[in-house]
């Protein structure tokens, strides 16, 4: 890896900085995923305490649309990965195409889940914790999605190349984080 980077004309300092960014982002993700684990535990404990879950007279959440949206999100993550690989290989066009579709799928996910968030009927703890979790995830999806959009626009302007693609790599990594975080929530909210 080090050898490759040297060949691409990066200086010792630049390689060090890149290594640091990669490690730093990985540790941040490891740390921040714990907030999602924490909210999942909150959900499970509230559920344990409640005599019935969902409360009497409230329907179980319909899992069909969220399941489709989960697949959409996974597909977007997959496209992001393909686009990033293309960028590493210097294929700028393929990068842009993959990311364009990925951003479209990501937007679809956010909009549909926002509708779910708004339309869930109030039912005390049950809907509060649902809104908290979906909202918390949605904020992450929005902020990181917005960052990906910025990277995409910069990519259109030709800002990245096969030896300079950290924003692409970092953004992709953050989007995978959004996907993994959602999968944890999906299991807790719709499967367990």
């Amino acid at each position, binding site marked *: 890896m080090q050898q490759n980077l040297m060949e691409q004309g990066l200086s010792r300092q630049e390689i060090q900085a890149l290594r640091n960014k990669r*490690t730093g982002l990985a540790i*941040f993700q490891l740390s921040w995923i714990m907030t999602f684990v924490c*909210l999942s535990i909150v959900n499970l404990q509230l559920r344990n305490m409640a005599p019935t879950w969902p409360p009497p007279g409230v329907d179980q959440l319909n899992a069909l649309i969220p399941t489709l949206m989960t697949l959409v999100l996974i597909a977007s993550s997959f496209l992001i990965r393909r686009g990033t690989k293309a960028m590493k290989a210097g294929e700028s066009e393929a990068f842009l195409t993959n990311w364009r579709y990925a951003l479209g799928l990501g937007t679809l996910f956010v909009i549909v889940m926002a509708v779910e968030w708004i339309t869930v009927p109030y039912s005390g703890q049950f809907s509060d914790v649902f809104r908290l979790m979906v909202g918390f995830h949605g904020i992450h999806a929005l902020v990181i999605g917005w960052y990906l959009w910025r990277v995409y626009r910069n990519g259109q302007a030709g800002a990245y190349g096969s030896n300079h693609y950290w924003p692409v790599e970092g953004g992709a990594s953050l989007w995978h984080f959004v996907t993994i975080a959602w999968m944890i929530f999906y299991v807790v909210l719709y499967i367990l």
Partner: protein
Amino acid sequence: MATISVPLEGGQVGAPERPHLKASDLLRWSVDHKIIGIQYMVTAFFFFLVGGTMAMMIRMELLTPNLDVMSSGSQYNTLFSMHGLTMIFLFIIPMFAGFGNYLLPLMLGAKDMAFPWLNALAFWLIPPAGILFMASWLVHPPEAGWTMYPPLSTLFSGDGQTLAALAAHILGISSILGAINFIVTIKNMRPPGMGYWQMPLFAWAILATSILVVMATPFLAGALTLLILDRIAGTSFFDASKGGDPLLWQNVFWFYSHPAVYIMVLPGMGVLSEVLSIHSRKPIFGYKMIAMSSMGIGILGFTVWAHHMFTSLQPELRIPFMITSFFIAVPTGIKIFSWLGTLWGGKLHLNGALLFALGFLSMFVIGGISGVMLAAIPFDIQVHDTYFVVSHFHFVLFGGSVFAIYAAIYHWFPKITGKMLNERLARVHFILTYLGFFFTFMPMNWLGMLGMPRRVAYYAPEFQNWNRVVSFAAFVLGISTFVLVYNVIVSLRQGKEAGANPWRALTLEWATTSPPPATNFIGDPIPYEDPYGYGTDKANAYLDEIDRRFGVADEAPMPRPTAPAPAPAAGD
């Protein structure tokens, strides 16, 4: 004789120009880890004085069994709540972050932290959080203790509780950013020749602490988010009457806050490993065991949180948590015995740094033992919510963390400022602190076992005598702080020159001028193969080389080559 490794490559002899740090440098945005480190320390020390003032007011109130200083019990609640929150979130955690920031790149021979800009951001989150926190006095400060248990914190505490929770949120983010920086710096920026097992033990302690911070602090963020939502957004996660669960807070909060206890003491343990070895001129005993026990404490630290909830937990869960709580004493014990082994047969230089390190050793053991007592459920239920608990955590947090901070100040002040602290004042400071500390917190053990409840401004009249002893000793302890402040001010102006390596220490932060230049080192320093290999000819040659490169101050505190060589390492 073995080959002599030189501390610095390149041919430059003589000291590079020494920077002169101005007070105004501390008020501006800087990405230099040394300035950020000092900014952390000065800010944290300021909050130490603020929190200490609150402690003095608490002890004034408790001089008599009745309410006399405070206007109401509720006001007393705000006082001890703010005292605890200030000391934990604004003093101990940032103080050690300050030492970590200043020392870690130097110890690793690096020019700065991995992410200098992020480092500055992490620091500059603290002053606004501190202001937000203190602003809670303007509305109505939190009354629910530092643990912020609902429903106290949701139904019975003023708007200041919201501000305090927000401030703690910001401080948590600051800690996470700082910890990421530490981990990346340790993982990626060690110099050639320094594997993990050649790192100074302080770096190991910072690594273990940082792992705890990144894995546990998100739980604090989660808990505080729920608390803030309950307070301002109309949710009722902690309201049992609406299907919420007050125990939910306790679980999530302690899942952060028990590891946080180790976040507050592990760096202190790292300081101790440095100070004891250097000032007793002996290799550290059991290097690998000390390093691994830091990691062991880090991992076990996640398995004991519910011992804070013995009286509220489902009974069937008590025994497992009792067992894990006993277990966590094992790695701590390994450290204590390793330190004793280090001291054994050493040539002890009883200066300020070593005195406070020995103070830590003795007082922390008392706190550790009362901790094991509290881990035993029958005993815990007996002394639950009494002064025994107050005594226990002050023995570990003051007797542990604060003594370690003092030791660190005496040890690294020469490096940070280029001046020695006055040793005579250091001794006065130590004696006042040690005695003041002991007589403040030891009698609390008796008071607790006699049944005096904590967090109450009134108490039964028969407790008054001991409370007077405690209060007077606390005032001595309070005054002792100003001996250090005075010492720092006087020494900054007219202290003796320290020279690059006053303690003849082998770790890399001493292989440069005091204070170090902006880039820390001229050239890339070469670490000595064993950071604690004192007493060998090879180590002495390395140290002589540092002296030759950077010069020696006129009145160097450690014997130099002209004096008799340090005693050879005994017992290993």
